[in-house]
């Protein structure tokens, strides 16, 4: 039983590690602020979700699980707000994104 738990946790940790490393590479590689926000979103959703799932599998039913779920809820509520505010301010400061505009934009 312990072995099955360890294997599941290992798989989740592997996916989470891939997710945050690819996100960090994208943060370096992508061309401008608006594209980099997508890479940061990948770290905030994919990495967090899989690392927390792995730790939840490891801890079983206890108060620790509740605290892990609370960390997930806080990050999932606050991450889009910071992303949106950063993008909004960058637009207000007249930074033009790379790429094409479809139709009229605000």
């Amino acid at each position: 039983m312990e072995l099955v738990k360890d294997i599941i946790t290992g798989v989740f940790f592997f996916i989470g590690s891939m997710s945050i490393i690819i996100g960090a590479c994208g943060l370096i590689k992508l061309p401008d602020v608006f594209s980099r926000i997508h890479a940061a979103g990948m770290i905030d959703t994919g990495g967090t979700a899989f690392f927390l799932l792995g730790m939840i599998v490891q801890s079983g039913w206890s108060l620790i699980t509740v605290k892990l779920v609370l960390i997930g809820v806080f990050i999932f509520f606050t991450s889009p707000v910071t992303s949106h505010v950063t993008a909004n301010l960058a637009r207000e400061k007249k930074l033009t994104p790379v790429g094409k505009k479809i139709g009229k934009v605000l």
Partner: protein
Amino acid sequence: MYLAALIACGISGILILVRIILGKTTFDRILAINSLGTIIVLGIALHGFYSGRPEFLDIAIVYALINFIGTIAVLKLFSTGSLGDIQK
């Protein structure tokens, strides 16, 4: 297993630090610092499990909230030039 995950967190933290140093605009740096905060939250939780003391999770919760408030405060300071009421 926890050690491998901690090493992955460290590698991506170093990659994000490169972006903080290179970053052309202020927004790049703020975005990268926010991501670094998320990775530090995960690192604190993982270190708690690695050393067998899950009480570290309380610190992780507080770090997640402070990270959000700090980012919003820096963005507000950058946008309006003051942290309190906007000067008329």
